[in-house]
Each structure stands twice: as structure tokens, then as C-alpha cells.
């Protein structure tokens, strides 16, 4: 690497996290620590029915018997679960009925993040559920969606308004005791989005949830549930940011998706939690369980993720392919820089006949980071004619980082066709020189090459997100080339 490149690398990797500001608003917090009382406090705050509280307490008791999983290729000091605030909500004078009634500070916060809560001002049709710390502050376009029978609201609201749907589906894909963090989430989840698309309805706009951690010392435990009834379609987006802090904050979310016969759900995430500083101080611990079930025939669930933030990422958006002819997809770009650690991938569980899955994972490691792909493709004995194709590529920038690939392939049916490929590469000197020779500086050349490398995944994102994601990649990485 030439001196010139080195200085560019320095410059870029030291670029500030753009979303690191804190909003000063009054909040309503639970006392620090976790006990049955904390759970009762949260449930009480949300005025929940008894069955919900019971569900939470059951989860909490299960969690107490479980252990923090250590198999992932990440390391971090033990989390003190008693040192976390499990509930924090911006104080609002009264219940918000219209968008005009939102606290102007909050409105400003979201505007600063580039999320307009104003329906009229939005160019393209994206309905937003805005979640700050533990609660959803507003959901846009609700009435318009309701005309089609689509339910899009905060989870708290769904518990009250649609208890039959929540009781039926919540925990049906990610059981309470699925894993340590899912159990914790089940006990203390505060808010999140709920979405139900009725039979045969094609949701006319992108649905989106925007998550923001604001208050110091809090953990965020949102829970999202998407149910797509027969023959319906929805595309769902998720974004997230957090202020810059020296401490590590825990984010343990659960996302569940159910797709019935011929239904299709596209779930896209641009994850940009605060990654910590250059020395690895601060940043979000992102321990997330995301899973979908293609319960019906010919259903399809597609996960797309662009992961650039968080100090530690631990997530494996998965698909259980139960319905015959169902399809699961996972497209991922995971970028780690400085001291970030990511252990991410997917599970494709082939149970039904003629099920198909596709995995495209593009890891990019820079700085002193560690980036792991971990995936499972499992073919059950009865899954006749299952097909999987996996492509896992790693791009390394500099010789201080690591790229790891841990694919598990388990085949129990002879008619399955499984193909897995993985490569590791770097940005070639010759590629950079070629760009330079055409007048493109090294910084832009790296952005160009990285975006080209990640293109197959970025192409899966809805237009609006794709542009955002491209910029994010450029900011996270430009110039970090060896």
C-alpha cells in the first residue's frame, strides 16, 4: 500500500458516525435491573392483558435457566443484565391521535435521521412505524392501509386491538425458549411493529420500521411480527441508529414472519447501529433472532440485509421451508471496520418437497475487525427435490482483519442438490490502478469496486434503500485498502 492510500484510509476510517447525536427529551424509565417486578412494570406501563404478562413471566423463568451462548466467533465482556434499563419511553403529554401532535423534538430527531413522519411530504409511498427506545411513537399511513384490510401498527397496540392474531402467531416461529436472547426478548420486549396482510392483498407501499436507541443505559428489545395470509405480498424495511456513547448498549430483537400459501414477504434491513469508536469503545451489541416460516405451499420469504453498524452483530435471519415448493432467500452484505465483530448468516431448513433456497453473502472486513459467515442448509428426509445454492464471498482490506466462513450442510435426502461456493479476495492493485488511469481517485475507486462486489445484494433492496445503502458502504469503507 502506498503512503497515499494509507493516509486516505486513515482519513476515511476516522470519519464520524453521522447519527451519533442524542435527543434531549424527558423520558419515563423503569428502574435499572431485571426481575419479575421489572416485567410487571413493563406490562403495567403498557396496560397489557393478563395473558401477555403470563407469557412474559413464563419466558423470564425459562431465561433464568438458560446460558449465554458462546459458540459465535465474537468476544465481549460478560453482560451485566442488572445494569440495564429495560424500559424507557419519551414522555408524551397524551396519546397521539394525529401526526401533528408528536413532540416537535422527536419529529426533529427523525427528520435529522432522514425519516419524515409527515405523510404529505413523503415522495414515495413508505409507511413508517417509528420506534424510539422502548415505544413506538407514531405509525404513518395507517388509515390508508386499513382500507385494504392491512393492519400495520405498533406491537403494543396490536396486543390490545388484535389479541387473537398476536396470541396465534407470536412465538410460533421463534419459540420463547429458542435461544438465550430470544427468551430475554420475550420477557421484556417493549415495542415493535405488527403487520398483517389479508388474503390476496398486495400491499401497495413499502412498510417500514425505524428503530432508534436514545436514552443512555437502556437496552432495546423490540419484537416484530409479520403475517402474510394466502396469496398476499408485502415488502418490509427496517432501519436503525443510535447515539455515540462510550458504553455498550444491548439490542436483542426478535422478528417473526409467517407466510401462508402463495404469500410472499420481502424483509430488508439496513443496520447502522453505532459501531463504537476506532478503539472499540462503545457501540451496540446486536443480538437478534430473525426467522420466517414458509408455512404454506408456494410461499416465499426473502431476507436482505446490509449490516454496517454495531460493535457486535450476532444474527441469522432464517427460513423454515415447510410448505411444498416454498422459497427462501438470504442476501447479505456485512461490513466490519475498526474493532467491529460480526457473526452473521442464515439457516435454510428444507422440510417441504421441491423447496428452494438461495444464499448470497458478501462479507467485507477492514481495520482490525472480524467478520464471520455462519450458515446452515438442512435438508430433511422428506424434502424431495430440495435445491440450495450458496455463494459466500469475503473481501479483506488490510492485513489486520479476519474473514471466516462456517457453512454447515446437512443432507438427508438423495434428491437434494446442494451447492456451496466461497471465495476470499482483496481489492486488486491492478483494479485500483486501472481506475486511477481513467481519472478516478483511489477513494472513489474503492467505493466503486466495493459496490460492484456487493451489487447482487444491493439489487435486492427497494430503490430508496439501495441508494442509502450504497452511500453507507462508501462511508464505512472508502480507502480502506491494502
Amino acid at each position: 500500500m502506498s503512503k497515499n492510500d494509507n493516509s486516505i484510509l486513515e482519513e476515511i476510517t476516522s470519519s464520524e458516525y453521522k447519527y451519533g447525536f442524542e435527543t434531549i427529551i424527558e423520558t419515563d424509565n423503569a428502574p435499572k435491573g431485571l426481575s419479575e417486578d421489572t416485567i410487571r412494570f413493563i406490562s403495567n406501563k403498557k396496560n397489557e392483558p393478563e395473558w401477555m404478562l403470563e407469557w412474559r413471566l413464563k419466558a423470564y423463568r425459562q431465561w433464568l435457566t438458560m446460558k449465554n451462548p458462546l459458540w459465535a466467533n465474537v468476544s465481549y465482556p460478560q453482560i451485566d443484565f442488572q445494569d440495564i434499563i429495560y424500559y424507557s419511553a419519551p414522555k408524551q403529554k397524551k396519546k397521539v391521535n394525529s401526526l401533528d401532535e408528536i413532540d416537535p423534538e422527536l419529529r426533529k430527531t427523525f427528520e435529522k435521521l432522514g425519516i419524515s413522519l409527515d405523510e404529505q411530504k413523503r415522495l414515495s409511498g413508505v409507511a413508517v412505524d417509528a420506534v424510539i427506545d422502548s415505544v413506538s411513537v407514531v405509525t404513518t399511513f395507517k388509515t390508508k392501509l386499513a382500507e385494504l384490510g392491512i393492519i400495520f401498527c405498533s406491537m403494543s397496540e396490536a396486543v390490545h386491538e388484535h389479541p387473537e392474531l398476536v396470541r396465534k402467531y407470536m412465538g410460533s416461529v421463534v419459540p420463547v425458549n429458542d435461544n438465550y436472547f430470544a427468551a430475554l426478548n420475550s420477557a421484556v420486549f417493549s415495542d415493535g411493529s405488527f403487520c398483517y396482510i389479508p388474503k390476496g392483498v398486495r400491499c401497495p407501499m413499502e412498510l417500514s420500521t425505524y428503530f432508534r436507541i436514545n436514552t443512555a443505559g437502556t437496552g432495546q428489545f423490540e419484537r416484530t411480527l409479520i403475517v402474510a395470509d394466502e396469496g398476499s405480498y408485502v415488502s418490509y424495511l427496517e432501519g436503525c441508529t443510535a447515539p455515540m456513547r462510550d458504553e455498550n448498549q444491548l439490542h436483542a430483537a426478535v422478528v417473526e414472519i409467517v407466510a401462508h400459501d402463495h404469500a410472499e414477504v420481502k424483509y430488508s434491513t439496513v443496520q447502522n447501529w453505532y459501531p463504537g469508536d476506532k478503539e472499540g469503545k462503545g457501540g451496540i451489541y446486536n443480538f437478534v433472532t430473525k426467522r420466517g416460516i414458509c408455512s404454506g405451499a408456494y410461499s416465499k420469504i426473502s431476507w436482505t440485509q446490509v449490516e454496517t453498524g454495531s460493535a457486535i452483530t450476532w444474527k441469522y435471519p432464517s427460513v423454515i421451508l415447510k410448505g411444498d415448493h416454498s422459497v427462501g432467500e438470504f442476501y447479505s452484505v456485512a461490513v466490519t471496520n475498526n474493532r467491529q465483530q460480526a457473526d452473521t448468516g442464515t439457516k435454510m431448513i428444507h422440510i417441504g418437497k421441491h423447496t428452494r433456497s438461495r444464499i448470497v453473502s458478501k462479507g467485507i472486513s477492514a481495520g482490525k475487525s472480524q467478520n464471520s459467515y455462519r450458515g446452515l442448509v438442512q435438508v430433511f428426509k422428506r424434502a424431495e427435490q430440495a435445491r440450495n445454492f450458496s455463494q459466500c464471498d469475503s473481501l479483506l482490506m488490510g492485513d489486520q482483519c479476519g474473514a471466516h466462513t462456517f457453512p454447515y450442510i446437512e443432507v438427508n435426502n438423495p434428491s437434494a442438490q446442494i451447492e456451496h461456493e466461497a471465495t476470499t479476495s482483496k481489492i486488486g492493485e491492478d483494479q485500483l490502478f486501472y481506475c486511477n488511469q481513467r481519472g478516478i481517485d483511489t477513494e472513489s475507486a474503492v467505493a466503486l469496486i466495493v459496490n460492484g462486489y456487493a451489487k447482487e445484494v444491493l439489487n435486492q433492496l427497494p430503490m430508496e434503500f439501495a441508494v442509502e445503502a450504497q452511500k453507507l458502504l462508501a462511508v464505512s469503507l472508502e480507502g480502506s485498502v491494502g
Partner: protein
Amino acid sequence: MNLATPTTDLLHHYHAALLEHHSMMTHPLHGLSDQLNKDFDVSKWPTTRHEEWKYTSLKALSQIEFSLEASSDSKKLKSYLESLPFYHTEAHHLVFVNGLFHSELSRLIPSEEKTVSSTYVHASLIPEQLAKVIGISCPAERDELRKLNNLVLHDGLSIQLPKGQTATQVYVYQLIDSEQPFAVHSRNLIHLAENAECKVVEHFAAFGNKSHWFNPTTEIQIDAHARLEYCLIQTQSDVGFFTGLSYLRQSDSSQLSHHTISTGGRLIRNNLDLILDGSHIESHMNGLYMLTNDTLVDNHTLVDHQRPHSNSNEFYKGIMDGKSCGVFNGKIFVRQAAQKTNAFQSNRNIVLSPDASVYTKPQLEIFADDVKCSHGATSGQLDEESIFYLRSRGLSHAQAKALLTKAFAGEIVERIPQPELRAYIEQQIDQRF
């Protein structure tokens, strides 16, 4: 240790009996094996809860009552050996029966006595040479199986080649012939000094319908510019267990071709560790496994690129029939210093029966940026289009399948240099399909 559970009771007894047996006599490798870890702890016996043993259960093995005594029938062994085409070649032929060197059946080249012989012979002839190799795999010792081997240290192959020398082809036969269940924990020690060269074939087979177990450790040091060709052939029956470690350390510009052919056994677990401790190394690892019935083969390979400018190339193929299960776990490490590494790995499987299964986990761990690494894994059936093509040319469905299966295996077999050996393996494949 009182932690033994009913499933490991027999192991516990076996270990106790081994200890008692060894306390009564001086071991031929006495003085050389002192630093080896022999603290077998039955409570640490691998189970499927261990990531490294996720798909491979040793439960059946731990429920066998192994005897310390074995009797063999030389006549039977002789006729078996004579049926092997390569036994007749001009070469070193070292025959070990039930863990001990069988001089009657063996044929050595006396002029090469100091370079090629049994480990026990070299231990008294050139102990200082063996001392350099024995225990090099210790840092990598990861389970109780190795400790049992360290404790017993049955006789095995020793090659101690000085600078620039080339040894005559070596064939090793590790045989078990016993009326009672019996286990062999052989130890091979090989050191090729600078620019030395040799070719080794190690063949494992057992007789009778009693359970038997091979648990060998092979330690190999390949110095700069030396060249080794090593072929492992496992042809056990459905009562045979195999759990082995081959640990190889290579220096600058050395070359290795390693082949592992597994055609039979109830449970085969091969650990192959390749430490590339030098630059401009060339390493090839090939594997072919084809099982049927209720059996399992598990190939665990580790390639550790520690220095820049080396190449490794790994190619394993599996053909799973009956209720058999094929496991492949290939790990490639590229350390920070190992820039300009080229590491390739491929694992391809064909599943022929509805009850067979394949578990594969190719793994890359890369800490250097200027490298070219890739792995690929596939599992599938024979190509229907190809079968149809052959049938349209007049072959029966079975013939077409057999032909394509053999072609699939042939890609590995053709990499083996010895024609007699290739012929033998092809014959094994022909019998199967």
C-alpha cells in the same frame, strides 16, 4: 476418576487394563515417549455435544469390550497379502499384525535399514532420530483418543531419511486378526530431511467378525525441498472402527501429495492436520470415500498456512449408499503472515440411496488480505441427463449409473501414482458398482 457413566464403563476398564499391562514391562519406546500426554480421562471422551464430533458418535465404540490379547493365523494373513497386487512389487513391505511387526510376512531392503524400518527397531537403532519427530503433534492433541495412542504406542512405520536421499517405495500393512475385539494404537514416525524423497502406502484391513479398532497417530516432518507421497487405504468391514490422526509439518519448498481412500468400515474418523510452516510449499490432499450399509465416514482436515507464498489444494469426494453417512469438515487457516497464499478446497458428494446422508462443513478462516482462497461443497445425485445419454447409447440404467459413479471416483483415483495401487482401488470400486 469416578465420572465414568455406564456408556463409558467399558472404556474405563479398558484403560485400566492397559495401564496395568504397561506397568509390567518396559515399553520399546521407553525414554522417547516420556513427554507424551497419557492422562486419559474417560469423562472427556468425545460426544456429539463437542463441535468437532457433532455428526460422529463414538458411543458404539465405547461399548465394546476390547481385549489386550490377540492370536493370529499367519497362513490366512499370507494368503490375504498375496491377493494384493502391490504386495508383489519391489519395495519395502512392512506388515504389522495386531500392533506388532511381523517379520515373516515383511520384506525389507537391508541396505536401507537405517532409513526405513519399524518404529520399535529404529527406537533401539537410531533413538536420537526418532526423538526429533515423536510428539510434534502434541500441541494439536485435542482428545482422549490421542492419549490412548500415547499410552499404548503400538509398532508402526519409521522413515528417517537423511538429506538428499530417496527411499525405495514403502508399503505398510496394518492388520488385525483376533478372536476377541482388539484395538491397535500404532505410531508412525517420519522425517524427511532436506531434499529427501519417498512414497508410502499404508493399508488397513482386519479379519473376522469381531469388532476391531485402529487408532493410529502418524507424525511427519518434511524439511525444505523434500517430497512425500502418502496414501492411506482403509478397507475394513462393518465391524471396524478407525480413528486416526495424521499430523504433517512442512518446511520451505517441500511437496506433499496425500491421499485417503476409504472403502469400508463401520465408523471411520480421519483427522489430517497439515501445518505449512514455510514458503513455496505445494500440498495436495485428495480423498475418496464410498460407504454402504449403516456406516459413517468422517474426514476432518486442517490446513494451516503460517507463512507466505504457499499453495494447498484439497479435493475430497464421497459416494454414499445404503444407510451410510458421509461427513466432511475442512478447515483452512490463513495466518496474518501468510500473504500470497493460494488455498483451494472442494468437497463433492453423491447420494445414491434414500437413507444415506451427507454432512459437510467447509471452513475458511482468513487473517491475511492478499490471498486467494476458495472452497466449494456440493451434494447431489448422478446427473439424469448423463444417465439418459448413456441409455440412449444402449447401456442399461444400472450400467449407466455404475459408469458415471466410477467416473466420479476416477477423478481421485487417477491422482494416485502407483499403478498397482490404482488397479487395486479400481477393483474395489468395480466390486461395489
